[in-house]
């Protein structure tokens, strides 16, 4: 009985009470309870920050084990751990400004940013290849998708005096985004919102207890 109270009833009471209060605070101003409720939300952000630390520890443990056991690809783990150690040393060394230290900023600007940008730029070619392979004119649906993709791509082209023939296409693209695409996306968002609201209510009412599992 005590175990059930500790594992089921108490978490459900805490979650439900706090959840209802925060939800009410979203719609109704409660100046008296604002410090308490803001403190609860603050806890949530602290827990999120602690999750980052846990993630970093897990990353070090996982790649350190791979490095020690010489598993396949251990060289990449070594690079990752070395990069992590370098950034930490630069940020934690005596006299450092922390995350805003010029050295750390230099690493970010001249190492991390070019790498991330370059890798993401390659996605354009993969997308182009995928478009060529996927958008085959086999059925009516694929024809519609292909034509729509072509129209959207042409509508993204900056219109200059040399590309004035693209104006009708740009207007068509604007219509497609505002009407059909928005309508479809709205349906998806409303359905997802209903599902999220239902799940939230079930958790608040204790019908689902993910925290007890």
């Amino acid at each position, binding site marked *: 009985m005590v175990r059930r109270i500790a594992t089921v009833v108490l978490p459900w009471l805490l979650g439900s009470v706090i959840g209802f209060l925060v939800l009410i605070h979203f719609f109704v101003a409660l100046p008296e309870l604002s410090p308490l409720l*803001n403190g609860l939300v603050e806890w949530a952000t602290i827990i999120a920050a602690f999750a*980052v630390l846990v993630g970093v520890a897990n990353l070090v443990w996982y790649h350190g084990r791979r490095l020690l056991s010489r598993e396949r690809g251990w060289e990449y783990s070594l690079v990752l751990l070395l990069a992590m150690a370098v950034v930490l040393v630069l940020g934690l060394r005596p006299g450092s400004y922390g995350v805003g230290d010029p050295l750390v900023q230099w690493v970010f600007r001249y190492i991390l940013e070019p790498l991330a940008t370059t890798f993401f*730029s390659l996605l354009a070619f993969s997308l182009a290849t995928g478009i060529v392979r996927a958008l085959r004119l086999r059925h009516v649906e694929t024809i519609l998708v292909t034509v729509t993709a072509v129209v959207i791509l042409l509508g993204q082209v900056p*219109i200059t005096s040399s590309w004035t023939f693209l104006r009708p296409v740009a207007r068509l693209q604007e219509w497609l985004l505002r009407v059909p695409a928005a309508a479809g996306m709205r349906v998806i968002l409303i359905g997802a919102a209903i599902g999220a609201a239902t799940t939230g209510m079930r958790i608040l009412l204790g019908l689902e207890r993910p925290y007890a599992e």
Partner: protein
Amino acid sequence: MIVCPKCRALNPDGFLFCGRCGKPLREEKEPGKEPEEIPSWLKELGEGLAAGPGPAIRAGGGEEPPPWLEEGPAEEKATPEGLPPWLAEEAAPAEEAAGELPPWLVEEGAPIEGPAAEEMGVAGPVVGPEEGAGAGLPPWLAEEAAPAEEGPAGEEMPVAGAPRPEEEEARAVPEEPVRAPEPWLEGLEEELPAWLAMAETEKREAEVFPSWPGAPEAAAERPTTPAEEAEIPAVTAEPVPSGAAGEAGLPAGWGQEAGQVAMEAETWEEGVGPPAEEAAEAAPAHVEEGGPGEEAGLPAVPTEGATPLPEVPHGEFPEVEVSAEEAGPAPWLPHVPEAEGERVPDWARALQPQESAQASFLEGLELPDWLRVEEERVEEVPAEPTLSWLERLGEEEEVKPAPVGTTARPPLPPLSPARRRAADLFAALVAAPEPVPQERPSPAPSLLKRFFRWLSGRWPGLFLLGVLLVGWVLPSSPPEIAQENWSVLERIDQVLRSTAGEDPPLVLVAFDWDLHRAGEMHPLGTALMRHLLRPIDPQRDPRKRPAVVAVSTTFQGGYIAQEVWESARDASGYEGVAYGTDFLNLAMRPGGESALRLLTSQPVSATFPVDHLFGQPVEYYALGKRLGRLEGIDLLVVMAGEESKAVAWLEQVRSRYPHLPCVLIAPAELRPVLEPYMQARGISPDGALWGLRAAFEYEDWLNRMSGIVVHRDLPLEKRLNVLAVAQLGLVALVVLGNLLPLGGGMEGSGR
């Protein structure tokens, strides 16, 4: 014993198939009354014996025929000659070759010399007729002769022609004989199954009882011709010591058979023939006196002092096909000369265990593997006298090559043509050498295929190179700013200009995008920062600039904001801007939506307490002191690289401050996803800028409105051309990728 339903042959118990004809045997035991049924000729003999004064018949023993003579199948009475079929078959050659001696009889008739004769005739212990017939017999024969021992006739009734007790004593076997195994069974006696041992026993019985026991009846019916008399063995002419037996007129075969049993037993057991004098004494009276047995052509047993056996030319014996194993002397013929061994009549050889008969005898049986292998080995044995087992016999003799056909297994059924062809093919494949793989000459690919193969791995680089070249070569022209974007830019500028009071307008910019969105977001951020940090009214107060506070909920947001700020700070026309006064980077706050929730419910400094660059408290800076709640913010610019970030800002912040001027800047990819939020009342921003095209138009707008040039190293027009060519190239790829398969040749190839 089991009687074969087909040929009526006796088979040992346990036989599944008949040893003679191979027919499956049913469990039909020999009827118990059958031994009591006496053949007609034996009954007649028995009646004659009972009626006549048989001198050799003892009192009380001549009323009934001996029990062992009563044995025999009931069907044997039905034979015309009064003989059972098996006996008739064996009797036929006996009649035809009456003068031919069986090997054992030859042995009997041969003058035995040496110690064997002495041992057998003189030194051996004397046994009675019962012992000679029963005790002196091997166990298998004792079983057969058991009735004779038990019955009164066996004890008291001496058969006609049988020697008297004193004569029996003379030729008695001194001790229990041990029968020598057959050559083909040497070394296998212990391994022989019971049924095979019994089969061998039955075969020996056939040897013991030759065909001529049935001859007395025929002999009594016809006279003996002179030629036959010449062929009569000398034993028949030998005087019988007890002439009463011959005078009794008993059938010669009867007495002959009775005596022959003992003689055969002695022969098998001792391997030597009985002494000649004993044989003479054992000869029945009718033989001695030329009784019926003489007319029947009974073989004569040479005895000492008797008429010698007529010389039989060797050429008179037909060639008998025997196997290599049979070519060796049998144990019961160890001392028979080679010439005599060959002079075996056909009818006697028919009684001998021949390989073919053995094979046919075992044909229908479930033989164990080791016995099958033995049969196959017999086939493979060469006819040459190279077998070691022949040497064990101690005597060398000429071995005739055994005809293969006598022991050869029946040929396999002929193969069907299809199987024969398959076998030939298999043999050919096995015999053929392993083929050496030869490279198949492939036709040279066409020029077009080689071009596509070369292009398949290089098209991205070629595409980029072509885009750069074409975009650089194309004539440049300023872009046309879209109406939507123009409205947004005007709205931003209007907010900045409309701020009343002495303090410059306060702008909160959210850098919630990561580096992988830098391609689109960085130009937008740079243009926005140039716009925000420029003097509001350069003519009136060039130092009055909007105050920009950067916040973020992502880890990279603080770095990106710092970089964008520094790029604007270092640009021309922005001299004098200072960190902490015109710009403050408050870094990031973990927690996502929770952080934004805090931002809306408490002062900004409470949510972002320290700055990113130096880690100082917000209040440390002059701009930080101005920061309060979001109500004091003049403009909110949300730069979101992901849908979730944009939605979080719109749902958590924009919904709480719907009257706060808000602009959304996001990649073009997010426009379809965020379009519903753009159309939703209450949370929709005042405007949005999407992607790289908006960035170029922003730069162009700044250039037009304020003369600000964001990038001096790379003209905007050229970048516009390159962007336009790249997008058109992607469109061309999509179109060509769909049109080429329709043109044929590449459908389904996926390339």
